[in-house]
């Protein structure tokens, strides 16, 4: 579906947009999971592993069980013996025999107060036999490495997943003959980049509250994916879906950190055992250590063969991704990372191989554009190295090689109309690229891409007798405003106002399925469902109006709260009146889902471990141009200005869209410069606190300019929209890297590019320059 009506340009005032959940959140009346309570509620606490890799030789909970005020203590023996996991079924609710990372749950306690629960947790006796700790990605892939999972071969896994020992998921993309092309290239450039792990760090640490009524359980939880949470509870506690109800109160952010199934089953099991409601509220420290959701560390090798004129003829890559101790939704990371190391370039000969490596670190999982910021950082820093090697301008080499409408990408996908080249032009123009700058400043440029995720999704729309509407949707709002925008879609379809609709959402027993606030998919898929549902109601209204106005339904137009005959606005009837009539007869109820867009074909490439990520549905493109000022004496880099351009198709909600880009950029600056998890030799996090895990603050925010290249895209979301929420997080760190490298003379090869690492790179560059001086 495409539209031709004019849309506001980026400089035009943004249309007013009032979020339905805005007043609640701004005034503090909104309720989050940790705010909820129930009569008789108990507090839950977990006993975590004392080692990062060890065999449990003794586990004795008797002292904890007999403490006054303790109503339930659970271990692996008290729940069904189920191994679960979306790609590899390698984990259990509670540790069985072996613990594999510091945040692994050995036991859970429910008690009348949090203090008693903590004392009971401390009274649990666990003895261990330490096992060798695996933390180094390359060593873990060696044939003689200790195994993180001795029994890996016995685990079930999804069909396309290719596994071997500590390699939990292997994927490769091959096209053409990269070896021959590399041998024939004029120049070959090889780089290694290493990215540290990082965190989503949502403002709300997670909370779960569970209550049983008979054989049914209601679970209030701070999840981004209520239906996944439900599926996890059903699978691990062996319950049918209709006996588990997941409700998400307001969600205090997620950034992917609250995707996946986490602690809903633990708390439900505690509540069942204690016969009382049970609530779990995480501390900030637990939020850092326990969830299987950190952004994965990566080691990336890239080799590119070029012609002297800068044309890329071949690329090979090798990627190791830190999976951590268990496989969360990371099974698709290798293929996605491989796509990002191949990059949005026209390369005829490609071979990229990617391994998802088990270690004794916290498990990795989808954090906003998983693998992409790190892989883009590596690839785009490498691309500036290519430009230096052939003596070309970094923007020119990108323009020359980047994909465009009708071009073939690295995995053999040919693109319909896309706006990457326009993004490069718009972002660099907005940044004033090429102008004079002080010698401690530079503008770095990077391009990025990201798929849209196609998934089934459902919604109902109804209009009650008084003419007020309800949208009952499976979609989950994690702060992006995507669900809030659904009101606009329904209103447009029905000729009503967004404010005429209430949103009923985040309740699995009320609304049909949706994948959740994940993969930037909410408007893309649920928008389709809401438009379809509203369309059914529109048909009903047109039918009713046709009867009232003695016209054909095909001639009825819904606009401004009225149904009128096309071409004769005066022949009209208010929609509220039609609603009143319907209330006495066939009710106004629409349901929608629609067919999810299918994957585009790939030609000439082959993929091992293919999970469907080599073909990008409705691909999004971006270019970020970042002006950085570097304090050469200390290595402190400051981002002064970020100019972005994004092709995310049609922009449905400009206010929300700009907000997503600005937030993504700020998150990218943090990943680039100050965030990053530090581990000790045993794989324990050393900076699991807000003081030492340095997120960017408002005071750090630079000027951010955004241009949307709006190309209504067929086979995409409503009105030709693509996804948006993750794409702005992809290219910022890479652009910052290129600005720093332009000032220093060489890239910083480790992410985050902390002040100290920049300073060391400056020192290395100075030393190399001095040696060059000696040599010449």
């Amino acid at each position: 579906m495409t539209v031709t009506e004019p849309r506001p340009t980026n400089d035009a005032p943004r249309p007013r947009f009032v979020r339905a959940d805005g007043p609640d959140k701004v005034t503090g009346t909104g309720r989050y999971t940790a705010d909820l309570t129930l009569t008789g509620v108990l507090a839950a606490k977990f006993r975590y592993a004392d080692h990062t890799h060890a065999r449990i030789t003794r586990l004795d909970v008797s002292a904890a069980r007999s403490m006054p005020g303790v109503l339930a203590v659970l271990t692996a023996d008290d729940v069904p013996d189920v191994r679960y996991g979306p790609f590899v079924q390698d984990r259990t609710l509670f540790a069985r025999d072996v613990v594999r990372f510091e945040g692994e749950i050995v036991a859970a306690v429910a008690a009348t107060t949090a203090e008693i629960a903590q004392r009971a947790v401390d009274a649990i006796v666990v003895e261990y036999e330490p096992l060798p700790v695996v933390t180094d990605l390359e060593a873990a892939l060696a044939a003689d490495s200790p195994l993180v999972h001795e029994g890996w071969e016995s685990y079930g896994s999804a069909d396309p997943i290719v596994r071997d020992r500590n390699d939990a998921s292997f994927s490769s993309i091959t096209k053409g003959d990269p070896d021959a092309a590399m041998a024939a290239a004029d120049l070959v450039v090889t780089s290694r980049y290493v990215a540290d792990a990082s965190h989503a760090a949502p403002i709300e640490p997670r909370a779960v509250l569970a209550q049983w009524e008979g054989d049914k359980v209601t679970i209030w939880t701070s999840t981004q994916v209520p239906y996944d949470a439900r599926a996890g509870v059903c699978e691990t506690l062996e319950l049918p879906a209709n006996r588990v109800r997941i409700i998400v109160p307001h969600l205090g952010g997620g950034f992917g950190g609250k995707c996946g199934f986490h602690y809903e089953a633990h708390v439900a099991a505690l509540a069942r055992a204690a016969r009382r409601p049970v609530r779990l509220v995480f501390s900030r420290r637990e939020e850092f250590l326990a969830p299987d959701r950190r952004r994965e560390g990566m080691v990336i090798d890239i080799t590119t063969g070029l012609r002297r004129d800068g044309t890329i003829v071949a690329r090979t890559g090798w990627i190791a991704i830190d999976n951590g101790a268990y496989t969360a939704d990371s099974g698709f990371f290798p293929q996605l990372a491989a796509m990002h190391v191949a990059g949005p370039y026209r390369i005829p000969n490609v071979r990229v191989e990617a391994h998802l490596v088990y270690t004794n670190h916290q498990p990795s999982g989808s954090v906003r554009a998983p693998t992409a910021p790190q892989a883009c950082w590596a690839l785009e820093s490498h691309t500036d190295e290519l430009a230096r090697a052939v003596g070309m301008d970094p923007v020119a080499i990108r323009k020359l090689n980047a994909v465009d409408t009708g071009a073939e990408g690295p995995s053999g996908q040919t693109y319909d109309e896309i706006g990457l080249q326009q993004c490069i032009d718009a972002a660099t123009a907005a940044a004033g690229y090429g102008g004079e700058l002080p010698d401690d400043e530079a503008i770095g440029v990077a391009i990025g891409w990201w798929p849209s995720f196609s998934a089934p999704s459902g919604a109902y729309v109804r209009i009650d007798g008084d003419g007020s509407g309800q949208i009952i949707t499976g979609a989950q709002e994690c702060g992006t405003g995507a669900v809030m925008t659904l009101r606009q879609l329904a209103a447009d379809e029905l000729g009503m106002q967004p404010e005429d609709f209430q949103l009923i959402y985040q309740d699995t027993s009320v609304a049909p399925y949706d994948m959740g606030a994940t993969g930037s998919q909410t408007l893309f898929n649920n928008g389709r469902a809401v438009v379809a549902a509203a369309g059914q109601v529109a048909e009903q209204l047109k039918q009713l109006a046709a009867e009232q106005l003695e016209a054909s339904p095909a001639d009825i137009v819904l606009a401004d709260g009225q149904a009128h005959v096309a071409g004769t606005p005066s022949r009209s009837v208010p929609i509220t009146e039609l609603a009143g009539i319907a209330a006495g007869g066939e009710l106004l109820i629409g349901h929608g889902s629609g067919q999810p867009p299918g994957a585009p074909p790939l030609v000439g490439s082959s993929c091992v471990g293919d999970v469907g990520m080599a073909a990008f549905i409705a691909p999004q493109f971006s270019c970020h141009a970042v002006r950085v000022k570097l304090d050469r004496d200390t290595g402190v880099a400051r981002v002064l200005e970020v100019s972005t351009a994004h092709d995310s198709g049609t922009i449905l909600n400009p206010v929300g869209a700009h907000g997503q880009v600005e937030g993504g950029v700020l998150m990218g600056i943090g990943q680039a410069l100050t965030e990053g998890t530090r581990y000790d030799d045993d794989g324990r996090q050393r900076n699991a606190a807000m003081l030492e895990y340095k997120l960017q603050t408002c005071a750090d925010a630079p000027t951010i300019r955004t241009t949307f290249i709006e190309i209504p895209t067929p086979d995409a979301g409503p009105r030709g929209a693509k996804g948006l929420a993750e794409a702005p997080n992809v290219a910022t760190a890479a652009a910052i890297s290129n600005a720093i490298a332009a000032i220093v003379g060489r890239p910083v090869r480790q992410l985050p590019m902390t002040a100290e690492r920049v300073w060391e790179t400056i020192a290395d560059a100075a030393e190399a320059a001095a040696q060059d001086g000696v040599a010449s």
Partner: protein
Amino acid sequence: MLIASTLDDALAAVAAGARPIAGGSDLVVGARHGKAPLPASLVAIDRIAELQTVTETADGGLVLGAGVSHHVIETHPVITGHFSGLADASALVGSPSTRHVGTIGGNVMNGSPAMDTGAPLVVLGATVELRSTTGTRTVSIGDLWTGPGRTAAAPDELCVAVHLPAPPPRSGSAYVRLEYRRAMEIAVVGAAAAVTLDADGDVASISVALSAVAPTILAVSGLTGLAGRSVADVAAAAAEAAAEQARPISDLRASDRYRRHTVGVMARRAVEAAARRAAGETIAVPVNRALGIGAVAATPGAPS
């Protein structure tokens, strides 16, 4: 917890074993992070009016009540004008809310080696007034800290005021710190300088103190011989002395090697900014922001 409304009530409470709590931004936050449990007996001193005054003395000195907040310090015209190094430090503390609750007394008595007001107070020659039910004594600021988180004050002594002597004519002070972000930050390293210029614009006297490179705030020694030299010479010599005398540790924030290097850079910049202020130039508080040290704003003439 007792909420004291007069100093006498507070003194009686600490004499009876209560721990004073002013803004609580060290004590409570530390307890939540498991540093040390909250003491069983607490006396809140944040509502005692006499601890919250800023008084100019007849000779141009200043008496800061212990309960004066960082926000008051960073905005008080006398402090930003004549004791600028202290205002530079207070203006960098935490966030606006931290600066509203956090006090100078709490900063000083908490005794963290990374505290921001410590180094400027040392170069400004501050003394601390300690009082108990049995009497009052005055301690030079350098003698107050005996180790990380430890002071020479007895448990029954309250810090009631910080005294600052009148700065000499043609003098200026500044505090700069290395920071990785612009709010909610703790000094990686920091340096304060107080400079007095002679009639030729050369340095008549200089003192430099450092934060976060030793168990307590470190006064740089051996600078007296620099009198009569140019600002540039003195800045370079002070930087070298700072880097040499620093005894930094390696931790999550930085390695010892990096700290030793950057504390020299900070010392040089502090001396240069203090000298410019001594020469009559107005550099807005905090110097970090005005001169783009670890900050966005780039002002022409910023020390490199």
